[in-house]
């Protein structure tokens, strides 16, 4: 493929090497090598948002099989977002403070805007408080896949319902999810499905259904413009119900004529149906689309890009995507078996596929909070402040170009599709300094609001390691957690130089650490270790390695 050659050429140049970029030919066969801490870190890094020492300890000594089994358990459905927005200026007449608004009347635009904020903060809170499950990453995967934007949807209750759908089906059946998304009121609004009638067909959803949600634009995806038109006719008649936050089918708006599809779909005709039967045409349409192998290949490529790497070369296509897609089809589009195969594969654990993913903004900000165990206001007893802080984290991700709930358009974030840069789009001269400023703030002064502060406590962080009084072990274990790759001895020595303030004997750190631990209330003793740990972790977070997962 042309773009691959292009990509290779570019990487070769930027890698500052005359050698071609090394890629692997390993495939989907089960990984049988050592499953040590480095492999565990890689697996957790890619399936959770940020990993911490507790997670590592929890999974330590478990087999790959056991870890993947745990990760693939769907997280329980969370309680919905609540009203944290009533204040002296705004009062939601139907929802008291602390209760959920997701089923309440719409009220007005001002309140709706506050509900968006509540929704986004709530979601960020779920990310921050995720359990050891891939559910959050998969929910974000689907959000990126079936991208919608809050303002276009226009109603926070629809947005919530849409999100709940993605979340509930995060590890479910793709075909079933596509059907539900097609009927989802938020999607009907976002892609104008509710305006699609027999007299005025709107092709918007019919196009994206094929181009973005199922078949993609790969070279073997050969549906035609007429197929888009025909599918649009199948999809006529759906409406949204803002009272019940649901969708309905109106047979009077449905095009009852026959729909002829192209040779790509074996010239299939979907016979037009009248009355309530008209709604059944959707199943025929989805059966026809999902009969195309390309759907399974496309979904697997999307997963690959989200969990492994963006460059799908010929070997990855034939050794990973093709067999993975086969599993997806064999399981009638249940996503789990294919995902499990990928996460347990030789390819996934190939050293060439480690540490090569540039963290998305959400991965960076949420991951940092989780990795360093930043303490947030209590969600139960101090809900408003918890939401405020969650929203701050959300806003940071947003300023780095990933606004949860509001991807730039229906295609999702360009990092997952835009050639040739892909993930690199996240990093530019505007966003990289913002990333560093955020990290500097967290390891330094922290962010304060309403008298609450979120900040990294590097002493507490260091305390989790096995022998924090030993600078070598502390550095090794910190590096293991923070960088998904091995580092040079030169860097380790440098980091130790920071901890030792230029002294040459390790025991000076040991003494300082023990001095603090033995006299926790002594400010001076604490400051000695605090300032050195701050400097060291700040340095580690400022290196490019910290941006990789």
């Amino acid at each position, binding site marked *: 493929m042309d773009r691959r050659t292009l990509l290779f050429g570019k*990487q070769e140049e*930027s*890698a*500052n*090497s005359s050698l*071609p*970029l*090394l890629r692997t030919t390993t495939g989907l066969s089960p990984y049988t090598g050592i499953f040590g801490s480095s492999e565990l870190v890689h697996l957790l890094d890619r399936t959770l948002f940020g990993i911490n020492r507790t997670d590592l300890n929890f999974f330590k000594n478990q087999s790959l099989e056991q870890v993947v089994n745990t990760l693939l358990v769907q997280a329980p459905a969370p309680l919905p977002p609540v009203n944290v927005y009533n204040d002296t200026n705004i009062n939601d007449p139907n929802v008291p403070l602390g209760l959920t608004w997701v089923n309440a009347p719409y009220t007005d635009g001002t309140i709706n805007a506050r509900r968006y904020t509540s929704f986004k903060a709530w979601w960020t809170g779920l990310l921050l408080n995720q359990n050891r499950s891939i559910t959050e990453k998969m929910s974000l995967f689907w959000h990126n896949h079936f991208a919608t934007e809050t303002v276009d949807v226009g109603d926070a209750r629809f947005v919530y319902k849409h999100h709940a759908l993605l979340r509930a089906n995060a590890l479910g059946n793709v075909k079933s999810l596509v059907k539900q998304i097609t009927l989802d009121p938020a999607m009907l609004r976002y892609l104008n499905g509710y305006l699609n009638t027999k007299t005025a067909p709107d092709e918007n959803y019919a196009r994206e259904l094929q181009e973005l949600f199922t078949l993609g634009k790969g070279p073997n995806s050969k549906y035609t413009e007429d197929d888009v038109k025909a599918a649009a006719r199948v999809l006529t008649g759906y409406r949204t119900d803002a009272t019940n936050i649901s969708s309905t089918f109106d047979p009077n708006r449905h095009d009852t004529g026959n729909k002829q599809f192209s040779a790509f779909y074996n010239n299939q005709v979907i016979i037009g149906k009248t009355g309530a039967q008209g709604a059944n045409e959707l199943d025929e349409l989805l059966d026809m689309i999902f009969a195309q192998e390309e759907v399974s290949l496309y979904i697997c490529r999307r997963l690959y890009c989200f969990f492994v790497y963006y*460059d799908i070369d010929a070997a990855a296509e034939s050794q990973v995507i093709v067999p993975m897609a086969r599993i997806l089809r064999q399981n009638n589009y249940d996503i789990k078996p294919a995902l499990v195969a990928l996460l347990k594969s030789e390819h996934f654990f*190939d*050293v*060439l*596929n*480690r*540490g*090569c993913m*540039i963290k998305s903004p959400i991965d960076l900000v949420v991951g940092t909070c989780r990795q360093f165990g930043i303490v947030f206001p209590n969600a139960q007893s101090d809900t408003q402040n918890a939401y405020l802080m969650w929203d701050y984290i959300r806003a940071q991700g947003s300023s780095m170009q990933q606004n949860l709930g509001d991807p730039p358009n229906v295609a999702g974030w360009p990092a997952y599709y835009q050639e040739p840069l892909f993930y*690199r789009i996240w*990093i*530019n*001269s505007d966003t*990289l*300094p*913002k990333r*560093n*400023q*955020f990290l500097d*703030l967290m390891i*330094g*002064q922290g*962010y*304060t*609001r309403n*008298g609450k502060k979120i900040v990294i406590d590097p002493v507490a962080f260091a305390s989790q390691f096995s022998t924090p009084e030993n600078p070598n072990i502390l550095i090794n274990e910190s590096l293991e957690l923070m960088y998904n*790759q091995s*580092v*040079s001895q*030169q*860097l380790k*020595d*440098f980091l130790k*130089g*920071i901890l030792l*303030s*230029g*002294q*040459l*004997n390790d025991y*000076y750190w040991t003494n300082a650490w023990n*001095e603090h631990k033995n006299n926790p209330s002594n400010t*001076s003793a604490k*400051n000695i270790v605090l*300032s050195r740990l701050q*400097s060291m972790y*700040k*340095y580690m977070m400022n*290196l*490019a390695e910290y*941006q*990789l997962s």
Partner: protein
Amino acid sequence: MKRRAFIKTAIPAAVFPSLIGGFTFQAFGASSLLSALTAAPTETDHVLVLIQLNGGNDGLNTVIPLDQYSNLFNARSNILIPENKILRLGNAATGLHPAMTGLKRLYDEGKLNVIQSVGYPSPNFSHFRATDIWLTGSDSNQTLNSGWMGRYLNEEYPNYPVDYPNAIMPDPLAIQIGSVISPGFMGPGLNMGMAIANPSSFYSLVNGIQDPAPNTPAGSELTYIRQIAQQTQQYASVIKASAGKITQQGVYPTNNSLADQLKIVSRLIAGGLKTRIYMVSLGGFDTHANQVNSTQTETGTHAVLLQRVSDAIKAFMDDLKYLNVSKRVLGMTFSEFGRRVKSNSSGGTDHGAAAPLFVFGDAVRSGITGVNPTINTVVNTNDNLPMQYDFRSIYASLLQEWFCVPQTTLSNVMLKDFQQLPLIKSSDSCTKTPTNNNQLAGKNLITNYPNPFTSATTIKIEVETGHVLVQIFDVQGRLIKTLLDSQKASGTYYLTFEDEGWGQGVYYARLQNGRVQQVRTMMIVQ
């Protein structure tokens, strides 16, 4: 499989030419300084180079009181330098370690001041704590969150880092070379300096070489991020440009990391950086054992270290002269403490207290400041030398005489008054108020008036729409008051900060607005 071989060599996360940017802020447009705007400004182009000797240098084997030799012999015979090898300074009863021929020559040329017995009351014997005391300029029993240089730079460039670099100050305020992140550059909020990790990464930066990233996907992404990082390193290009202007330098000793660092400093100074303060360091002075060769005490570990210091400084001075910038540069050595008077049985010395330090440069008032320490006939294991000069007297004197810091500002930096020492030749000493241009550099987001104040002051802030926080901290970093913590529309706001019995002294008003922060220094006077 080939990739196996690869695992071993794969992905060495090299130390990137990491210019650790300190981001922050802060402020003080002391009204007296503002009024000085109208006076004829004299922009100082003076540079201060600090040489930190990590580990605690044995002062008594560095600057040797010849008139105390017999008592010294009683106290430390196993490490004492033979009397006839000591380099006597002029006619004084004081001599230098025989390895320090370079410094001896500087003394002879009138470019070295030896200050005797520098320390502070109630000395601390922990490396870390003592280092923090020296770098923050705190009292022995006081914990400060900011460094003395950070506080100075804060006064000089109150708006940093908002809208920095800029035309007035296009360069880093302070540069540190070496592996120790210095708390000395810490301002009341964040670090005012930047660090160049080490000499080799400096040359990588200047020559555009990066430590190699492997030709793996991870290496490829790493390289990409590093490239963007370098592009966005606000000071990378000015440093590169300055270094590029100097193509020839004097000769420096080899196998001498201090010399390597000073060579870079000289190049940057001569290349035209406006950077005020440079910091370099040399470790290994923690000589608990075998600090000398027992058969030839003028040689050994400590002699090697002192020779490195002396040779490096001499070469640096010669180079500065060659590059025609020596008049602009003043240097100073320091170490967190001296060592015990009595040596131990391992042929070394344990942690001690006061010790001599060196100030050097064309502008220095040459000579010996202070008198030889007195060594008692009987010296006990725990005996230490009493201090003659507080180390903060030297800081204060250099700030005032070399950086032309006015008295009011000096109190904000040093936090109290210290004895002034005549360290600079009167012809080179500041007599005028410096220009206020630096006060105007960058964008000012928080100010207060009046300042200093007695009962109340008005704080003016300029904010973007969003959450705004204004907190008041004392010099120890304790939060004493939150003046504002709410959502605000973009605009200018006024707040009042009252002295509710906080006591006189320096206080910091910190503005947090989204990701931006700036800190203003305020002073309460009675």
